[in-house]
């Protein structure tokens, strides 16, 4: 069956979540073609510094080259195929040497040395045995890669959503960000798309997270007005906002599959800190831009199919498909160099609440992802409706659409991209 036919403008077939063959195709056609967020400049500062990441189910190594440029290659030795790096991050000042027979690869994948050269005299051309390089592009310090050499430029892929990355970077009063090397990982036994269809869904919190709301309320009552709420307890409470609130909120969707919704969880600053931070921003950006930056309040931005961005709390998450029924979500938190310590504390609180498997909020979502897999395996009607807010679009821009945050427009937009990627053989 032609895979693209499994999704229409308004419906998707449940097999896209349960069929391993579809997953294989997704790896080749979606993750093999899209731009995938890999790493931040600050993770590979010194020459030889590297991190390992994934593009779909393919491992890659991102390395800082001697000339200061970033390089990425598939994490596989071209001799017999062993993975070159076993660590998440490290230093390889002399290149990546295979643990099996010592073939040595430069950051860009070129094969520098094979031991006992005489064995290969006249039969092995090193130039033909480099590791597969990954095409790279930076956007403001964030490195994206693609296995598709003919992919359109990154800027085109990001489109209007680039502004969500600007939002993150511009919040630094020095323009500098540092990615914290400790990361927070969770996973679930369900399909990767479930996360993308959940994170901008503003109807589910009132139901899926109702227990968190109840318990947060109980604690709030218990401690009374005197004491202030712990941030994560506040996050639990936030899920109780009335639907009306989310209906008024905007959602922006743009091809291919991207979206964000208006913010609604501004972090508190103690006044004095706020003033100082504002001053610093003004002196760095000038008054107008600073005002614009402080005025921006976006909640999660989703860059389909593999990353989610939260500028206000300096958190980026990578959604990593492992199997059709197993997905990992990796949370990275950034320090805005020069910003008040309070900013970073808020960011840490956020990433813990938003990405720890032990977060009361996340554990609800993880449970649901697994119930979605179970239910979609049952013998039942095949088609899933994506109709919510179908007629509620508010504004049509050049390459983007504005609609209520309660709409499933972002899911329809994702499957439009999905169809497009999956169609071309």
């Amino acid at each position, binding site marked *: 069956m032609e895979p693209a036919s499994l999704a229409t403008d308004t419906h998707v077939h449940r097999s896209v979540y349960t069929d391993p063959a579809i997953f294989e195709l997704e790896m080749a056609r979606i993750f093999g073609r899209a731009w995938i967020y890999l790493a931040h400049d600050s993770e590979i500062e010194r020459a030889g510094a590297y991190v390992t990441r994934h593009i779909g189910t393919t491992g890659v190594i991102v390395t800082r080259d001697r000339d200061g440029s970033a390089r990425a290659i598939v994490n596989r030795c071209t001799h017999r195929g062993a993975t070159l790096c076993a660590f998440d991050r490290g230093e390889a000042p002399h290149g990546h040497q295979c643990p099996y027979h010592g073939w040595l690869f430069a950051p860009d994948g070129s094969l520098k040395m094979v031991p006992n050269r005489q064995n290969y005299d006249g039969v092995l051309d090193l130039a033909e045995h480099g590791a597969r390089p990954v095409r790279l592009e930076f956007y403001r310090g964030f490195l994206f890669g693609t296995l598709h050499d003919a992919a359109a430029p990154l800027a085109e892929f990001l489109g209007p959503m680039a502004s969500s990355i600007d939002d993150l970077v511009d919040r630094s009063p020095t323009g500098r960000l540092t990615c914290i090397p400790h*990361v*927070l990982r969770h996973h679930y036994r369900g399909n990767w798309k479930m996360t993308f269809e959940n994170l901008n869904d503003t109807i589910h919190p009132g139901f899926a997270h109702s227990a968190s709301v109840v318990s*947060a309320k109980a604690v709030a009552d218990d401690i009374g007005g005197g004491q202030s709420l712990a941030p994560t307890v506040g996050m*639990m409470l936030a899920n109780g906002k009335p639907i009306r609130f989310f209906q008024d909120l905007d959602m922006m969707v743009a091809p291919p599959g991207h979206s964000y919704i208006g913010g609604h969880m501004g972090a508190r600053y103690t006044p004095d800190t706020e003033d100082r931070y504002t001053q610093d921003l003004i002196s760095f950006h000038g008054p107008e831009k600073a005002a614009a930056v402080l005025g921006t309040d976006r909640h999660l931005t989703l860059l389909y199919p593999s990353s989610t961005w939260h500028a206000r709390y300096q958190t980026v998450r990578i959604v990593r498909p492992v199997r059709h029924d197993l997905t990992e979500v990796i949370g990275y*938190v950034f320090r805005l160099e020069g910003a008040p310590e309070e900013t970073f504390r808020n960011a840490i609180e956020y990433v813990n609440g938003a990405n720890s*498997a*032990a977060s009361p909020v996340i*554990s609800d979502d*993880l*449970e649901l992802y697994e119930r979605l897999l179970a239910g979609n395996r049952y013998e039942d009607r095949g088609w899933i409706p994506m109709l919510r807010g179908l007629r509620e679009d508010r504004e049509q821009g050049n390459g983007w659409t504005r609609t209520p945050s309660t709409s499933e427009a972002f899911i329809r937009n994702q499957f439009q991209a999905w169809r497009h990627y999956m169609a071309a053989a």
Partner: protein
Amino acid sequence: MHPLERLVHREARLLDARDYPAWIDLFTPDCHYWVPVSPDMTTALDGPSHFNDDRQLMQARTHRLLNPRAFGAEPPPRTAHIVSGVEIVSENPEDAVALSTQIMLEWRRRTGFEDDQRLFGGQVQHRFRRVSDEWRIAVKRIDLLNAESSMNAILAPF
């Protein structure tokens, strides 16, 4: 048995009994319950954490555990804490520190087969403080063996 060792066992027993209010009462008002993502972290600001709770959050999450609409906690998870090698590494009139090796067998209802159980383990550090003449837990830090691993939903505190 040393009273602090007894306290470590008592805490484990209360967790297994899901008597969370009594469990929280073992802690000081300004307590810290912490499960970092790496043994190399020295403060909860060195990076993210699996658990980084003050008393309020301990209350909120345990209150939720007993709520039947808490998806992922249907029914509430069950645990069996095994405590071994308790060692009082420092003891002063006002504060003390104990190390122990613990594993926690956890059961959550998933598919209904034997693999609904998970096992967690590692080193536990208890920092005690005397509050109105009683030993209380000021800090509980759990360094899981697999702290850096990708975790599926974790409901029950360690």
